[in-house]
């Protein structure tokens, strides 16, 4: 720039230079601010997954290892938290979190089915038995617990999820214990755990079903019953 300039032009030149620098700083702040918010969200997600991991580790969950790129970019971002690096890292973290969550929900579902049977089928049986005098209250209690359990089945489990599973398991046991005579209890227990074989459908069972107007609540389906 020429040294001999009108005053108004010199002032403008200085102001533009200063402002140009300020703009660059402002842009970095803007990027970091956005990254901070996003990382905070992802941090919450990973904390939730880590808690679920701790609940299931060794029982129904073995863990999930991230891709090497995730670790490389985590390392790079921790040294140079530039917008471009942070953007890439955030995309990879989101992808990894979705993978962990999916696999964890699947493992938890399998685990809970092993303890109480199929929740949906059990809900149908409990609903049927809630109209039978003598077990109605137990069946209704089981039905409520099963409802709460069903609503959290698509998320990584929490401590509350484990508590509900325990309560469902006990509720089912109480209901089975309350069923008399034994043939009925045996028949319904098999129904609750994947279906009863035909030999369990004894006359006594039929009589009970008829007496309790429940004969139309059961069906015969082809397939081998699960072994207890």
């Amino acid at each position, binding site marked *: *720039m*020429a040294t*001999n*300039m*009108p*005053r*108004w*032009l010199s*002032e*403008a*030149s200085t*102001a*533009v*230079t*200063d*402002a*140009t620098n*300020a*703009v660059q*700083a*402002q842009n*970095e*702040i803007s990027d*970091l*601010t956005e*990254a*901070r918010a996003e*990382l*905070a969200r*992802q*941090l919450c997600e*990973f*904390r939730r*997954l*880590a808690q679920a*991991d701790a609940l299931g*580790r060794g029982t129904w969950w*073995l*863990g*999930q*290892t*991230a891709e090497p790129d*995730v*670790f490389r970019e*985590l*390392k790079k*971002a*921790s*040294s140079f*938290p530039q917008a471009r690096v*942070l953007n890439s*890292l955030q995309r990879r*973290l989101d992808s*990894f979190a979705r993978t*962990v969550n999916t696999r964890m929900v699947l493992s938890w579902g399998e685990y809970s089915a092993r303890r109480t049977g199929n929740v949906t089928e059990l809900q149908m049986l409990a609903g049927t038995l809630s109209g039978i005098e003598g077990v109605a209250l137990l069946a209704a209690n089981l039905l409520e617990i099963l409802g709460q359990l069903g609503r959290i089945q698509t998320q990584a489990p929490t401590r509350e999820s484990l508590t509900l599973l325990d309560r469902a398991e006990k509720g089912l046991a109480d209901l089975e214990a309350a069923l008399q005579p034994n043939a009925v209890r045996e028949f319904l227990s098999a129904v609750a755990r994947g279906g009863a074989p035909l030999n369990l459908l004894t006359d006594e069972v039929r009589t009970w079903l008829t007496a309790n107007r429940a004969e139309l609540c059961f069906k015969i389906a082809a397939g081998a019953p699960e072994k207890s």
Partner: protein
Amino acid sequence: MTLDTIEKFRCWSGESVGQTVFPDIGALASDSDAVFLAAHTPVDLEHIKGPEVDPGKSGEVQVLDALLQRVGDHERNTLVAVTGGSGSGKSHVVRWVHAHINGDDERFHVLYVPRAVQTLRSLLRRIVDGLPGVEGTELLARVDAAMGKASPGEIKDRVVSEMRIALNWTIQERDAEDDETDDEAAAREDRNALLGEPDHQGRRRDGLADLLEESAISQALLRPDGRIDRLVRSYFDETSRRDDDEEGFTAADLPIRERGIRRSLQGRPSLVELWDIVGRTPEDTLSLLDEALRLALPAAIGLRSRAGGDTLDGLFTASRRALREQGRELVLIFEDLAQFGLVDGELYDQFVTPPSSDLAPLRVVFAVTDGAYGKLERTVRTRVEHEFRVGGSALAEPQAFVGRYLNLVRVGRPRAQELWSQSGARDGSGWVENACDTKENGQECRFRGTCHAAFGAVEIAGLGAVGLYPYNANALRRAVAKVGTDATPRLVVDECVSTNLLEADVHIGAGDYPHARVQTQFDFTATKLREAVVGDVPAADADRVYRARVIWGNEEPLAPGIEEAFTLHKYPGPAPTSSAGTNPTAGSATMPDSGTTSPPGLSVALPLAASPLDSLLQWQNQGALPEGERDGLPEADVSTYRTTLYNLTLSRVHLDQDLVHIYSGRGKELLARLFNQTSFAIQDSSGRVAGGDAVRIEIRRSPENVRLLAAAYWFRDHGHFDPERAKWPWPTGQSPEQMMLELEGALDRWAALVRERFLAVSGGAGIARGALGLRALALAATGHDVDAIRSTSAVLNPPVASPGQPGSAWQVVHVSATKVLALPVEEYLGEFAAVRQGQTGEPQLIDALEFDGALAEFLSDPTTALSKLATSSADPALTSAAREFENALGASAGPERAELEAASARLTALLEGCLPQEVGATAYQVGSAANAAGLFRPHLKWREFESSTNALIDAPGSEFSVTVEPGPAGVLSAQHRGRVVRRLANALTFVVDAMEQTVQECRRSAVGAGGVAELRDVVKAQVVEIHQLVQSLERKE
């Protein structure tokens, strides 16, 4: 007058003229047969219809014989019609018949109805009184009762009322006829529809009669000067003619275009519909109204009464019965059938009623105009046995015709009646005396010899030689010719006998005949220049002598007796001239050479064409007439004289000596404006006359100018002044040399006048100087460097430059200057200041030094130069452009000076001593940096910023301020640099403004940019924690 000289002699008096001359026979009393017959000229009659009565007889005698031929035949009536045009003399024939019929003949009774001036009632009384065997008092009393005390307005109301009655009750529907055409059937049905539908009493409803009850319609019928008004008034007026109103009702008698008629008929839809039909086809309505009027009129004026009583028809019938009983017949002599007007129906009924054992035959002769005869009812016309048409004219021998009247006024009425009564002659000739032979107590007039020798006489059968005094043959011919080619005997008697003799009596007595008015009473056609006729007469006496020599002498000296009678001095007559041999009477001339010398003996003598100077000769004499009676030259002749004088003068203008080109372009236009055919203002002649600053040459009616015009016409046709080679007769009495010299002199004078006016208006080369100077100022005004346009060539081909656009204050000057630059200045130079050489005649040279000087004048003092040019009338386009430019400059110089000075100051202040090129470059760098950072403001004006900084970078030169010298010249001179300064100032102003806005934006953007490091640490910590969590999720078998 003395007893031994004819001076002031008159053989008639005003009194005798008044007693004996009656142009309209209607004004001649019925007992004035002597006066009538004494001047009667036998009429040539064509016997159009009827068997020839006596092959040996002709004229009026035939009519008389035809009328009386059947007297004694009780089986048939006789109708004789004398037809002819108005004023042709047909009534004279009937009057002659009456004068020659024996009223004492026992075989018949004569009822004579002259065409005397009388009211309708007088006419009826004459008929009633003339019918023998009837009283008719009841009829006359009824007419008296009907018209006696009634006003015309009352009669008009009565007529309309009777028309309504006729339409309601009397007029019948027409039945279809077997052979009627479609059009006739349609017309009949329309007529019947107009009558309306009859009710149970037979009165028609919703027809024309009901429409007439509407006030607006009846008022239109009664309007002043309408059909009914004219008719009714004619019955109250004394008139000898009622044939002027033959047209019937017209559309103007119906209020067809008047508003409100339909509204007033609102309650009667049938009448509304009828009125619409009337409006669309008024002809049928008008025809029906005519029919109703014919029926209504007799009742309205008392001729007919619904209560019965006498009718004209009844009286005729009764009279015929009475005569039949006496074995006599009824002779009806009507001088003009048309005077019976709308009551003629009563007469026609009689005409068609044949005689019988109790009805006397009718012998009827009547005069009727051709038009009225054609309209006579067919039943009457077919019963006309003889039709005589007045053919030829009594004017075939005008001298004899007028001579009889001249003799009558000399004889006088008392003597004529005395002679008539003494003679008892009925054969029409020989009873009246010739006053020339008997004036002096039975002896011939003492001046007979002198008078007849000087004025001439006409031989008239039964009279002998009748002197023409105060006419002679020439004068009488001119007097009759003045009456016109359609002269009738009545008009000739009125003008040539009555008027002229009365005036001649007075003025001959006073010694000043022929007085000035005589010129308007005779054909005053001249064939010579006036001075050729009265060149020998002193001016004081020339007018009267000239009139006498033209009228009585045919432009030749008068016979001695004429000068004596009219108390004119005796002059020798004009001297003969050297060109006397070329007088038209010579009858031939030699054709002019055709550019080469004809071999001897090969020249061919051809008849001369008629002189084209006749109208000029008449024009020369019109000065003696009252202004209103001067015709001036005919339009075609005016054009010829003007064009001839114009062309001859133009050929002598020679403006090329002043380097002015007048054969095309502006020189021609200016000259045409200043000098053209209208520059010659010929006195009393039609055509536009030059005005404004144009040359105007008055051609007044003077002998000199008549000679000039004649000479010009001659030269135009011949190209020389040699009477021997004439195409048409050389003007008698004029010297070719004199006429040529006079024309040459006049043309030179006029050409000098034109040249002087042209140069005064145009300034000669001044137009070219003005055009060039104006262009120089326009170039300066559009931003050209004044120092570069100080030469003629530079102004004509200015350096190509782009000095920039004008400021707002200068815009109007710039536009005006642009128009000036569109003027073809080269043409101005070529047409007003260039020497033309070579074969093409195109402009070749101009005096550049002269024009460079003119440029210096314009550029140094544009105000004065423009003012002078703007007030010049030389060239409208140049003047207009100069005026517009001057006005624009005057209005804009002040504001423009202020603008330029402000721009210069602003530029200097903003540059702060720096060069615009450097400032522009730096500003562009700063602006670019700001723009890249999104900091440039105004956000959308970057392109304009670029353009402005480029303008600064490209600024020409090193001086960037302007000083405006005083006056408009200073502003003009400052335009060139001023436009640069203004452009840079505007650019720099924009740049500065943009920089200021950008600085503001920079300051705003820089706020709140701290805390980056802290934020960066927070993010790092987040990444580290996530890293740990991800690691915690690792799979472990």
